[in-house]
């Protein structure tokens, strides 16, 4: 029973890491930049979902759609204001700018949404069902399915659709892509909107299992970045796999060695894994032409 419950916990939490990490993956493969406010984007999804569905009483599908749309909009703002001005000048300052953007968002939410954690109840996280003798909320089973589904969809989209191929072309050679009729700026902006929407989705999915507050995304964002690197940031399936493995690792260490060792062992394993596989689980070696 200890094993089953640890696996279920690990799968659900790991899929969350994976979903947020997919956001890092999407912008990285298109523009070689990442949005370090992914944790805050996740929080934004949960806070907006709470505001629309619970406070304003909108029907859930509408609330979710609206929250995701606004998260995507936030991604566009991040790209336009915090990444593009720096990246186009060849500066790496977008790194700090996106961290700062996340802190600003956290604090805006703190003042507008309030300081107290709130509950985001869902019928999917009310009555546990029994799975091999361990109690599980249906939502905990849905999260990994959604995560894996999105990873597969992204993989297929990047490799088999025109849009996906166009996006990948951008990172290889911006000028060539532009000459081929690809709107490079729009492609990059799209990737940021997609990445924050993915984080927002993660926030909406985790909210009923957790509580909604302005700081909820911080640790998730950090762990998700570790997961993205671990998975090899260039591979969608690698990132998702790494997320799930990391979640499982955390849960299994907690279950068998005790919670005192969770963070120590989990992050040590990440470091060792990266030392052995510098390109991550499924990532490709980056060759930089000079």
């Amino acid at each position, binding site marked *: *029973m200890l094993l089953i*419950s640890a696996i279920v916990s690990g799968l659900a939490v790991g899929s969350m890491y994976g979903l947020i990490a997919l956001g890092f993956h999407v912008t990285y493969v298109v523009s070689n930049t990442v949005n370090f406010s992914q944790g805050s984007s996740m929080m934004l999804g949960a806070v907006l979902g709470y505001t629309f569905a619970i406070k304003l009483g909108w029907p859930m599908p509408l609330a979710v759609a609206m929250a995701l749309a606004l998260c995507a909009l936030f991604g566009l703002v991040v790209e336009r204001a915090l990444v593009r001005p720096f990246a186009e000048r060849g500066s790496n300052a977008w790194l700090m700018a996106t961290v700062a953007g996340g802190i600003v968002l956290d604090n805006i939410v703190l003042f507008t949404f309030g300081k107290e*954690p709130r509950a985001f109840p869902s019928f999917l996280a009310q009555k546990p069902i029994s799975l091999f003798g361990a109690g599980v909320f249906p939502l905990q089973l849905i999260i990994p399915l959604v995560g894996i589904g999105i990873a597969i969809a992204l993989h297929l989209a990047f490799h088999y659709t025109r849009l996906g191929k166009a996006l990948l072309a951008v990172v290889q050679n911006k000028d060539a892509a532009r000459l081929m009729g690809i709107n490079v700026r729009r492609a990059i902006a799209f990737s940021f909107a997609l990445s924050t929407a993915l984080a927002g989705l993660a926030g909406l999915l985790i909210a009923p299992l957790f509580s909604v507050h302005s700081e909820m995304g911080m640790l998730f964002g950090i762990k998700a970045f570790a997961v993205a690197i671990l998975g090899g940031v260039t591979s969608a399936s690698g990132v998702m796999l790494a997320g799930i493995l990391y979640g499982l690792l955390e849960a299994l260490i907690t279950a068998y060695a005790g919670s005192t060792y969770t963070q120590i062992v989990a992050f040590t394993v990440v470091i060792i894994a990266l030392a052995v596989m510098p390109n991550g689980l499924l990532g490709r070696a980056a060759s930089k032409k000079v």
Partner: protein
Amino acid sequence: MSAASRIPQIARRLLLAATAVTVVSIPAFAQDTMKLGLVAAMSGQSAKSGEAIVRGMSIAIDEINAKGGVLGKKVELVVRDDESNPAKGVVAARELVQREGVVGLFGGLDTPVSMAIVPFANQAKVPFMGVWAAGTPITRNGAAENYVFRVSAVDVLVDKALLAYAVKKYNAKKPGMILINNSWGESNEKGLKVALEEKGMASVGIEKFQDADVDVVPQLTRLKEAGADVLFMVANVAPSSQVVKSLDRMGWDVPIVSHWGPAGGRFSELAGPSGAKVHFIQTFSFNGNPSPKAKDIFAKLQAKYPEIKTLADVTPAVGIANSYDAMHLMTLAIGKAGSTDGSKIREGFYAIDKYDGLIKSYAKPFTPANHDALSSEDYIFTYFKEGQILPLTN
């Protein structure tokens, strides 16, 4: 204004070489109010606690000033936000003493912040009154001349009370611990171990968890398999509710005896109906409180803060009650001292014979050996029901 504030600054520079006592008392001469400082969390997740403290103190100050203040001066509260950050707390405490010239300091909810201020208060010989943070070493800090007093729970006493309650109410024989992974959890781990040892008992397991842990099932499953018959829980409101939700999912119906973390927010909402199973400690409750003083203070709160409509709007009441009594005791001590000199005020605390407070009637609340005005007999056990903290009768 500028001239008035420049004088103490110059004076301070001249006297830097002299004793710290003089440094502290100089600025006060230039004021026509008696300034007292509060360093507490006014923003961030614990902001509600700061609000409660300010409310309790404001009611007390209104009463004190209506009777002419202390030493002929009106009392004025100067509030600084520590953002739950120890470094910011120390800076704020220094600023309050050295620039604002406060004659006494009050602390907030966070034990780590108070712990950081303690050495400064003792060194600067400024009375520092805790009104919430329960960390044992705040008042029991080992200083030869201890300037730190408290009107709040004390972890080491709380832990004894938690064990006594678990044994009496649930006949606990094999308790387990589920503790937040920070210094507060640590302090109670020690306290609970000592309490258990004194009773010749031992815990079957000690598990830690993080603020951001979505799922506490692995930890709880370990405790269950170890055969725990009662859980001691120490964590703030959001992580506490994660424990309750995880227990629900496991379908494990185990009694939970908790420190006062759940009181700090919307525990009913976050934890769901099973939140009512958590019995936690408080020093005060307006609910079910027959004392006329409690009714009087609540009416005053409603009059001063129109947003307070029902008792649910003053949860947790401990912050209000502790800080109300602490403010009165501080001004009583200053009155007994007859001076704003820190070491005289310290003696003044020992000289307080009797004070009819909100929490109780205090008789000799402070002695050189005991700087905590509340003892384990003053604790009550409560639970959350539909957003209200209700006392448990037995």
